[in-house]
């Protein structure tokens, strides 16, 4: 009985999480359009990020931070040493700013203007000194076939083999249909939310190029022919085949059952 209850409770965990809180409005301090990227970034950071990440990006432990502008108690990881790679990823995917600490960030439109992203990225990268730089934006020269192999091994368990996304207990694995090559490169090294992180030992730079090539290819697959049914995955494809097979079977039954004309 307890086990059943546990499974039931678990199913609730698997069920779509309650709608995430609306992201807070972006605050643009007066005069933040001027100044060096470093200065602008510092001002935007203080206005939009410091509630959760601390005034100098040192992070905020849950329950220790001051209430933010929207009345949210801040809590968030330290940004020291994350480099330019992480802020670029979180801001261009619209993952940040987050409505409520602890929500799973979901892909949304980019909330900051491009120049503001550059400013914030410059500022955050300067916080810890060092840290990884923004990876290249181009798809690159990766091998799609090797990428598929690598993707099946490292990514497909959660993201499904053509990157349609899926679930892991307690969280959603986002679809990769709109991920840019740069964001894929960034996510692999960061491991956002509950995704594991892949070091250069687990996925080398060359392997990452292959992966990016595969994800890019899977976003708009070149069909060799036939009916793609919108690449909705092997199970629906199987059902379509099954339905067509049923029609053939029914037709055969009618033929067999009909009387012989003589």
């Amino acid at each position, binding site marked *: 009985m307890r086990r059943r209850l*546990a*499974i039931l409770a*678990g199913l609730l*965990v*698997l069920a779509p999480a309650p709608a995430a809180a609306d992201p807070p409005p972006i605050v643009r301090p007066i005069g933040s359009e001027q100044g060096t990227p470093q200065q602008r970034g510092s001002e935007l950071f203080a206005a939009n990020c410091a509630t959760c990440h601390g005034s100098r990006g040192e992070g905020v*432990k*849950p329950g220790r931070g001051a209430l933010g502008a929207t009345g949210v108690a801040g*809590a*968030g*990881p330290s940004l020291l040493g994350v480099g330019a790679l992480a802020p670029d990823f979180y801001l261009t995917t619209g993952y940040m700013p987050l409505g409520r*600490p*602890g929500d799973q960030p979901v892909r949304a439109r980019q909330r900051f203007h491009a120049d503001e992203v550059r400013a914030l990225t410059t500022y955050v990268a300067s916080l810890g000194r060092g840290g990884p730089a923004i990876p290249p934006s181009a798809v690159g020269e990766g091998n799609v076939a090797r990428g598929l192999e690598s993707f099946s091994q490292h990514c*497909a*368990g*959660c993201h499904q083999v053509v990157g349609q996304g*899926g*679930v*892991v*207990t*307690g*969280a959603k694995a986002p679809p990769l249909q709109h991920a840019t090559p740069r964001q894929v490169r960034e996510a692999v090294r*960061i*491991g*956002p*939310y*509950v*995704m*594991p*992180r*892949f*070091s250069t*030992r*687990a996925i080398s730079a060359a392997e990452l190029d292959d992966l990016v090539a595969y994800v890019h290819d899977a976003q708009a697959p070149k069909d060799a022919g036939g009916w793609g049914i919108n690449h909705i995955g092997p199970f629906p494809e199987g059902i379509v085949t099954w339905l067509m097979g049923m029609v053939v079977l029914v037709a055969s039954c009618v033929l*067999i059952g009909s*009387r*012989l004309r003589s």
Partner: protein
Amino acid sequence: MNLLRALAGWVMLRLLARFSRGSGRLPEDRPRIVAPQPPHPRAEGLAVGLLLLAAVSGVLFVVLYALEASTQLLGLALAGALLAIGVALVVLAKRVLPTEQLAEPFPEPDPEQADEVAQIVRESGDGLTRKKLLLAAGGAAGCALGAAAVAPALSLGPLLDTDPLYKTPWRRGVRLVDAHNEPVRADDIEPAAFYTAFPEGASKELLGAPLVVVRLAAADLRLPRERVGWAPGGILAFSKICTHAGCAVALYRSPLYDPTEPDPALVCPCHYSTFNPATGGEVIFGPAGRPLPQLPLMIGRDGVLRSAGDFSGPVGPSWSGVRSRRPT
């Protein structure tokens, strides 16, 4: 339909006749009911041919199965056998057996009528000139198809012998290697990442071979008392085979920011069995009935991870009596 009903009636009446005193024999001098039919040598030949084809296909399935051919070929052989039998039956029904529609009330059991039905059935078979050959061909097809259906059961392995299931390639001192046979060094295992490892010098195909290796902060571990020292430096190794249905535990839920995100967990993508690495592979969600077996680790002088013994429990999906023994 009529034929079926007639056949069923005939079988029933034969049984009745056997138990009652009346003889089941039919008088030979009664007038025919079904008009005599011309023989259909071509249709019959076709049916025989098809049934023999079905037999060949069935045998082919067994041979292909023994040769471990691709599943497509196996499917083709089985489909061929079924299709040939089906077409043979259609041919017989359409070309050889008389088709006639008769409306009749549901008959009361009546010995007089029983004889009549039996006669109808017997005379209906007049069109079959090579009855024995047809029966033999049908029997061959049935036997071959039956053999095809039963053959895969041989893959179930020795009956009731579960000893091999407890065997794993892990012994104290066996080094961990990655998919390319490179030794896995303890320093290479980073937190928030997961790795697949295998025993050095053993087949990677064995059920007990693949491991999933993760590193947690040593302070976060809450291993059972008897497993103290199994995770040097917070490095944990578990069997990669889910204890529910034997899928590869390919998902690692690894929070980037512990305070507000779900705890680390190993998740099987098939049915979402979820195991807690910090407590030694305990099931925290999903249909798995047993914890994920943990492998004790130690770090050799060369810095390479080695197993310090065998798994904490049997690897893979459960079987009767699975909890009775430790793996060897």
